[in-house]
């Protein structure tokens, strides 16, 4: 009951922020939402389905550049570019997922790693479309229907709205049969197949959906930042996404938000602490985080909650007592069962 109130309360809080925060902070929080969508995409693939990807920067870039090119070259209304980017990435992800079926664990990580490395170079190569190293500059859209919002505020609300929609979709997908199938494939692939789950189809589809989410995030990032350039979409971005889902918590929807907050703000705090070696601080924080919360923030919270519930001392009392083991018969000699 307490948890049911938490979500609406958070949404109300989030809706109030644009009127309280400075433009820059608002921009940062908008990026947190964008990152959260990307992280949820990756989490569906890696956390729930067990397919490790170090290549999601590629889908992020695909989404971002799809949006940027459509707006810049063909003057497509920006709102339309988002679903198009998502759809394109869905197909791309699905197609990539097919050869990826043969690879597991380390090998999939390597293949996606190689993909990430290639992205900036490919983007620079197709200069005519992508604007090469200079990238593409966009302008921030104004709020529609004459709403009294600044562009930053409008982007914030739009991103928040899309985030809520996508999170709701994911929650429903993962709670039902599809979600169970996806997790079953991660934990017991052979058993899943034996039970009639078409693992190949599900794995490819999961790749597609994961890419679609990350692609939408990429498209949003292009609008929010109003600029795309190849070097932003490198392997380090993919690694950052991975850090985000592990720190936030694998196989968790709320973990995407925690992770997004982490990857957005911790590097900045690290810089505040040490101008000279900020990444050393960041690395240190990462390591400490893994010591204290190896299951990520969401995972640790989940564990703590579960322990609280079954704790005889602290937990809530529910109905019948937990069954006690009855005392065993001592030295029973020759008593037939």
């Amino acid at each position: 009951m307490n948890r049911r109130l938490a979500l609406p309360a958070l949404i109300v809080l989030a809706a109030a922020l644009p009127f309280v925060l400075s433009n820059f902070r608002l921009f940062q929080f908008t990026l947190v939402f964008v990152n959260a969508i990307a992280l949820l995409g990756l989490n569906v693939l890696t956390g729930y389905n067990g397919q490790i990807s170090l290549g999601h920067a590629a889908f992020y870039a695909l989404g971002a550049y799809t949006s940027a090119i459509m707006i810049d070259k063909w003057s497509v209304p920006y709102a339309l570019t988002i679903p198009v980017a998502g759809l394109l990435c869905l197909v791309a992800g699905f197609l990539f997922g097919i050869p990826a079926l043969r690879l597991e664990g380390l090998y999939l990580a390597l293949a996606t790693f190689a993909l990430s490395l290639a992205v900036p170079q490919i983007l620079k190569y197709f200069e005519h479309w992508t604007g090469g190293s200079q990238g593409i500059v966009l302008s921030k859209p104004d709020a529609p229907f004459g709403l009294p919002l600044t562009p930053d505020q409008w982007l914030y609300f739009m991103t928040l709205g899309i985030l809520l929609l996508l999170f709701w979709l994911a929650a429903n997908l993962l709670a039902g049969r599809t979600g169970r199938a996806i997790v079953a494939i991660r934990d017991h692939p052979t058993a899943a197949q034996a039970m009639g789950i078409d693992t190949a189809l599900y794995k490819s589809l999961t790749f597609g959906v994961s890419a679609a989410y990350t692609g939408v995030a990429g498209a949003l990032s292009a609008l929010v930042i109003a600029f795309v350039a190849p070097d932003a979409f490198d392997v380090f971005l993919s690694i950052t996404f991975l850090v985000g889902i592990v720190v936030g918590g694998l196989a968790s929807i709320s973990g995407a938000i925690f992770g997004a907050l982490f990857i957005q703000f911790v590097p900045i705090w690290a810089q505040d602490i040490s101008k000279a070696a900020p990444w050393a601080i960041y690395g240190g924080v990462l390591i400490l985080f893994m010591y204290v919360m190896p299951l990520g923030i969401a995972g640790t919270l989940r564990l703590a909650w579960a322990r609280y519930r079954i704790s005889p001392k602290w937990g809530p009392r529910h109905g019948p007592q937990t069954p006690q083991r009855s005392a065993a018969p001592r030295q029973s000699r020759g008593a037939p069962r």
Partner: protein
Amino acid sequence: MDIFFQQVVSGLATGGIYGSLALALVMIYQATDVVNYAQGNMAMFSTYIAWSMLDAGWPYWLAFFATLAIAFVGGVAIERIVIRPVENAPILSIVIVSIGLLVILSSVAGWIYTYTQKPFPSPFPNRPVKLGNVIVGAHDIGAITVTLIVLLLLYLFFRYTTLGLAMRAAAQNPVSSRLVGIRVGWMLALGWGLAALVGAVAGIMVAPVVFLDPNMMGGILIYAFASATLGGFTSPGGAVVGGLIVGVTENLVGTYVRFIGTELKLTVALAIILIVLMVKPSGLFGRGTVHRV
């Protein structure tokens, strides 16, 4: 034809370095199922330590061996102090720790030594060497020799000593190893120490060629991944052979294929990785994984 042999020898030299780093990666992967993304930066940091010694006037080979000793101890210490607290955590969590380590090493090196490139001396004379009709660089020959000696010593250690045997056992089957009294935790630490030592050799041998800076090992690490992928992540020998093949291929492609400029040089590594993974993921010498039901 002379150019061909030159490039092959040069390729073997860089290949030896790729292979060494790949060997370090495979050693740790075999024992722990974790890829140590910080391996390259550990090698870089060791090389900076060597540089400090040389800068202070130490004779080359003294600095060389002292650095190897420090790298070994450092590797052991990192495993016992940094990795041990998470050794039972999910694999991805350990990967994040190695990423944290990577970032710390790079940042601290930049802070202490700045990001300006520094020249690094080679112990081998600068003049070319004549092998039959072919002229090759002395440093290339020297690097190949040093690398091969280190690898040979490592091989002998693992094959013929009791400690080496215990380390192999601990990597293959930690549970049974405990049942014969092997302190598996310390075997792991020794593995990290040796991997760090091998990485230091690679760093010291490659620094004269690519110059010393905190991001020196980035590209080399990627080539090491390609080498380990080609040779097989489950085969230490394969990693070395993979490195040699990758080194030679990189040089030959760079020489004979026109449109591969330095920008797309990385493409060779990527292409190798993707091709191997498509055709035979376990690599040339690796064993395919058996799926337990």
